[in-house]
């Protein structure tokens, strides 16, 4: 096995939010990321999957130091980046990069594509002169299969797939080794999505990149990632090889996630598995006591076993259940 390029241990991020009319007195903390640990090996893609609001994107932002964690450590290449000041972290920024979810917001609408790309190169490589910057820019365009004449366009004149390529080119311009890809294809059509994914897979091989791939598209996740981590309300509930997690899930939540997919894929209509509490499905409630398993209110096993005290009182920790496969559940499947 390769060495871990990124090692995240017990990462926590709690947001505080005012509660009610006396909001300045009563603060409610929202544990968006609550004790997440994982490793990403070099040249590996780790998929991070979960519903919206489960803390996927926040985890990505913490790794990039776009947001300061409440506690925990993020070790990149042997260096813990959490205690670093932003100034000290700056040289590391060229090693860890992010592909943002919403490119309409990430690309400056008043700058031409050429300016957007050259700006990044100039900031991180001050020694380069104009012609060297241009050469580098053309190299990047070739890498992402974008035509040179697009350099004089504004982002609004490009299609979704082209904007995505510009985003990837800008990310690559500083020679990163680790990329956090936050829903890179969520707004694209299937045909264009395939183009972008193929590009990302190729670049990984060419440049030896490692990805943290954040998405809620399970089908894509299963195919692109080497390993998958499933998150539920700020905690990782299952982590393991992509095929293993998809084919033999041990956590009831993973099982439900994937079965909702199989129902959708199959041509003959199969009824979705019955949930214990459908009403609870739409609502996340962080305000309830932070004890026990967070999935319990929606868990079919919890209901089946007659609401055992263990689930109510003790939060399950990740336990091994096969080679490189861990699950956080008192009664794994």
């Amino acid at each position: 096995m390769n060495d871990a390029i990124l090692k995240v241990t017990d990462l926590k991020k709690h947001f505080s939010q005012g509660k009610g009319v006396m909001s300045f007195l009563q603060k409610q903390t929202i544990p968006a990321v609550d004790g997440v640990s994982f490793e990403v090996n070099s040249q590996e893609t780790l998929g991070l999957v979960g519903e919206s609001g489960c803390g996927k994107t926040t985890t990505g932002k913490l790794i990039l130091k776009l947001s300061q964690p409440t506690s925990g450590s993020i070790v990149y290449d042997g260096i813990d980046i959490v205690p670093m000041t932003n100034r000290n972290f700056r040289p590391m920024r060229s090693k860890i990069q992010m592909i943002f979810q919403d490119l309409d917001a990430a690309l400056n609408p008043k700058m031409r594509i050429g300016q957007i790309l050259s700006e990044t190169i100039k900031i991180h490589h001050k020694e380069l002169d104009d012609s060297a910057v241009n050469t580098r820019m053309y190299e990047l365009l070739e890498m992402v299969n974008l035509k040179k004449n697009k350099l004089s366009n504004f982002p609004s004149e490009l299609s979704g797939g082209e904007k995505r390529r510009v985003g990837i080119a800008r990310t690559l311009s500083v020679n990163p080794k680790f990329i956090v890809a936050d829903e890179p294809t969520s707004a694209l059509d299937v045909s264009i999505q395939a183009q972008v994914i193929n590009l990302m897979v190729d670049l990984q091989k060419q440049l030896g990149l490692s990805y943290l791939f954040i998405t809620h598209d399970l089908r894509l996740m299963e195919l692109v990632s080497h390993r998958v981590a499933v998150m539920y309300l700020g905690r990782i509930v299952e982590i393991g090889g992509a095929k293993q997690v998809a084919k033999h899930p041990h956590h009831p939540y993973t099982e439900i996630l994937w079965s909702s997919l199989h129902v959708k894929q199959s041509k003959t209509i199969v009824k979705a598995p019955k949930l214990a509490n459908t009403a609870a499905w739409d609502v996340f409630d962080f305000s309830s006591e932070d004890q026990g398993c967070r999935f319990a209110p929606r868990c079919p096993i919890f209901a089946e076993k007659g609401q055992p005290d263990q689930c109510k009182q003790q939060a399950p920790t990740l336990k091994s259940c096969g080679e490189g496969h861990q699950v956080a559940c008192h009664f794994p499947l």
Partner: protein
Amino acid sequence: MSTSPLLKIENLRTYFYSRAKQAFIRSVDGVDLEVNKGDTLGIVGESGSGKSVTMLSIMGLIAARPGIISGEVWYQGEKRINLLDGLKDHLNVTEENGRVMGIEKEDAQWQRRLEANMEGIRGKEIAMIFQNPKSAMNPFFTIGHQIVENIIKHTPYKAREEAKDRALYWLDRVKIDSPKLRFFNHPYGLSGGMCQRAMIAMALSSEAKLLIADEPTTGLDATIQSRIADLLEELREQTGVTIVIISHDMGVIGRLSNKIAVMYGGRVMESGPSAAVIDHSDGKSHPYTEALLKSIPKEDNLSTQGHLNSIDGEVLDTINVPKGCRFATRCQRINKSIEERCKSEEPPLADVSTGHKIRCWLYAD
């Protein structure tokens, strides 16, 4: 049982004008579709293929000019009417070699005529579920208020109390938990899935015969998507409403609909029963549909290098529409014997088996 379809679209064309490029954008360019009573028609295609614009045209919701420039939309309600009746009188289209060169339109009269045609149809007979429920609903009013408003306008329940009971009934019907509480929520107070449910409740509350769902599951989580699809399926079984569902997700379309139309570049490329379109029960398929199906991330679609199958190139630019087949530049099944024909002449939408039509020279004869 009447023989005529519930909705029949003939040669619908909706154009827009691009001032920057000084040319017409041919968003919908001669679409023919039929929806029978009780059917669920799925319309698939990439973004920019004209799916949504077709449906917005039917609802008379195209605001930008020139908008709808030709076509007929026959709706079979109590009597058969053309929703675009008489609009031609206020429109002057100059064409040259089948290409639209100029459009003159008397906007005010045109709009007035359309509104007159739509009276009692839009919202009452044909209801729509919009793509983004959060922006489709008015953020200043509670969802309850908005549903009640719809009920009072379109159904015999005219008293406010009566209408409120009815609204609660529909909220319950779409499985919103504690409808009495949610009734007083504003759209922003609801999660994406719940907002979508409220939107469906609103559309159904007028007891429409035809429901148009524009990307009802896009932007929702996988689990919620599957639940919304379940809900639509259940409601169709219970109420017998006819549904037109627009999506770029073959999975959703394949699951919900019994008829499918595939659109590309403002035209219908293939239409027929879903068994024929998705499962190729008659062994014939349009190259575009095939490519779309292949690009779905699935294990069987993965090549040896771990690549997904993609459709090369970009979606057709509907300003410079080629003379020949619109898909020719991206087509994988184009071969020497037909290449010339594909590039010079547009294929007709030809019958290949019962109810299955394909627009491709491979099947034209």
